[in-house]
């Protein structure tokens, strides 16, 4: 018996909207503050918190914690402690805390939350704190971390989306979308599914990441940079492809990402579109899994990329300490170690894959090659509103998936709602 019906499900969606709202309110009252210290003088003694959903991953978390411990042991002035923010509500929780004048000192955000936070003045500008040239930051993904001419973050992780497949279940990876559908159908037998992807409102951010690949892969885009194009034919075509696979009964319907990723690691799922960070998690969950990675077999050679910036909270009382850790992590030696922790993801600066990792994961170069065609999962030209647009789109797409409307109607409705939202 409980006081009211289970709160978390309905609360999370409301909280998401509230979190975005509060950031906008915060923007009215608190602009970015100047750095409190001079980095050349060194940081003041402080204990700072670092919030990263990566820390909660059984596969990658311990490695990142080890790296943090290494920093803590390397000097006696700054101590970095992981902040306790669970992954399922990470973005909403941190944005609410930051909007309320608190929050972790350092945060590893996903792009929609980064766009919201940066446009709301919740992030410390890093223009004169990060020497991009000296640190040799990779320009492609790095350019997305400047808003209105100001840098608000550095790349923590840049993970390209690709097709992961179980080589025992899928000996010949598909090269076209039709082959992709057919392979998924042929592989689905008994307790084995050909494919898996997210398809529930509870995983709104995940569904957005998944459908992003279908939209880009079929030549669509959510906007032309100035106007929203949610109901354009190419977008609808991509989403119809997503629906086709849903209707083909080749996925474990209702299973969340935690479940179907575990299924993939245990040989119960043939294919999955996921980002490079999944390599470490998968091999950690099952070291004996015979899997590989190749380009997503959609008509257009373009896919989403999970670009995750590391930022300094404008509310932090220890910005110098936060920057000290950030700069330490951007040094070449630490970047190599961070990439080792993150798996097939890229980091902020170019690193060479070790012979050992190439031997273990020979497909790594194929993943790295996708960096040029990777697109961060934000709505081009509407970065700060991406989280709200995402909610509208995912809600309508899932309603279409459930048979409540056809996909064209869904996207026409989404376009109308989103236009109203952005004031078009």
């Amino acid at each position, binding site marked *: 018996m409980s006081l009211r019906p289970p709160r978390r499900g309905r609360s999370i969606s409301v909280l998401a909207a509230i979190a975005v709202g509060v950031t906008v309110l915060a923007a009215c009252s608190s602009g970015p503050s100047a750095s409190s210290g001079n980095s050349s003088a060194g940081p003041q003694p402080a204990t700072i918190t670092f919030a990263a959903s990566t820390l909660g991953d059984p596969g990658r978390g311990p490695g990142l914690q080890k790296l943090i411990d290494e920093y803590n042991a390397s000097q006696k002035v700054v101590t970095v402690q992981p902040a306790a*923010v669970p992954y399922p509500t990470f973005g909403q929780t941190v944005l609410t805390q930051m909007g309320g004048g608190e929050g972790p000192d350092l945060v590893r955000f996903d792009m929609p939350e980064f766009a919201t936070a940066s446009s709301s003045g919740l992030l410390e500008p890093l223009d004169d704190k990060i020497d991009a040239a000296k640190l040799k930051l990779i320009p492609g993904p790095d350019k997305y971390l400047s808003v209105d001419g100001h840098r608000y973050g550095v790349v923590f992780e840049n993970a390209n989306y690709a097709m992961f497949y179980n080589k025992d279940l899928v000996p010949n990876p598909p090269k076209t979308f039709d082959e992709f559908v057919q392979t998924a159908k042929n592989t689905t037998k008994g307790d084995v599914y050909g494919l898996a992807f997210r398809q529930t409102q509870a995983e709104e951010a995940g569904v957005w990441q998944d459908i992003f690949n279908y939209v880009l892969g079929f030549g669509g885009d959510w906007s032309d940079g100035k106007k929203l194009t949610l109901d354009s034919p190419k977008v609808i075509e991509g989403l119809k492809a997503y629906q086709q696979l849903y209707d083909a009964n080749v996925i474990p319907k209702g299973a969340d990402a935690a479940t179907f990723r575990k299924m993939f690691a245990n040989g119960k799922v043939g294919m999955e579109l996921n980002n490079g960070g999944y390599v470490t998690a998968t091999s950690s969950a099952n070291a004996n899994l015979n899997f590989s990675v190749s380009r997503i077999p959609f008509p257009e050679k373009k896919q989403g990329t999970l670009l995750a910036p590391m930022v300094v909270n404008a509310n932090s009382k220890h910005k110098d300490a936060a920057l000290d850790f950030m700069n330490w992590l951007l040094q070449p030696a630490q970047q190599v170690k961070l990439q080792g922790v993150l798996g097939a993801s890229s980091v902020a600066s170019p690193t060479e894959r070790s012979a050992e990792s190439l031997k273990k994961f020979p497909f790594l170069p194929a993943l790295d090659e996708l960096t040029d065609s990777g697109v961060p999962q934000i709505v081009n030209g509407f970065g700060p509103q991406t989280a709200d647009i995402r909610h509208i789109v995912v809600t309508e797409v899932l309603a279409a998936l459930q048979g409540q409307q056809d996909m064209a109607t869904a996207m026409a409705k989404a376009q109308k709602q989103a236009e109203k939202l952005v004031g078009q």
Partner: protein
Amino acid sequence: MRQIRFGVTARALAVLVVLGLAIFPVYWMFVTALAPDEELFRSTSVNLLPDFSRFGIFGDALADGRVARWLLNSVIVAGGTTALSIGLGIPLGYALSRFAFRGKAAVGLALLFTQMLPEALLVVPLFAVFRRFDLLNSLHGLILADTAFALPVVALILKGAIDGVPRELDEAARVDGGRPPTVLARIILPLIAPAIAAAAVIAFFSAWNEYVFAVTFVFDKSLQPASVGVAGFIGEQDTSIQSIMAVGLLFTLPAVVFYLFAQRYVVSGMTAGAVKG
């Protein structure tokens, strides 16, 4: 006679079926916690028997130290919320039931209104208030936040229970010189003990399961309650399903113990006076 026996057997069977439906999810959690990876997703045959050779997962969870800390924090928050809600709910319920005062209807309506707002809607303004009064990142702050949601329900339950107590009893006590607090403590409270126990169970479970305030208002890992701690087992790329099930089971135990404890009072209160003439 045979008909009576059949009726009893049918009722017993019906109770067993309902009990089975209620308990099966918990049993399934137990079996899943002890299942190896390869057993988790087998749909061709379902193993309903737990693999006790893997029982160590529960020991590992507790040996970690974090789980025990989370549970202790949850006990403090849920216990504090229950005590505060009952402590404030009794006089509030009594006042609403027995006294006529200006704005009484508005107070009753306001209590109902609080239940119509999802807590996610209040988390932002509450965050600002808690920050102003330095209540963030503390267990007593969480107790206050949870009490704000539990108190209206507790007060309305207790008001309903007090409404059921004949006013003649109050009047008789007053004739004997009893003032309202004395009447409440000596006459009313013993008679509404079952309702107090039921309200306590509701307040305890409400705070025990609460997540949104807990995850937003508490930053320090050592102050996290178990509802947040368990959610932390869900990773971005990887999740240990067995660990979640094991910790989830441990998470339910203190709440079940509290319910069993409170249930005695609910039952004894219901039967009290049943044999008096």
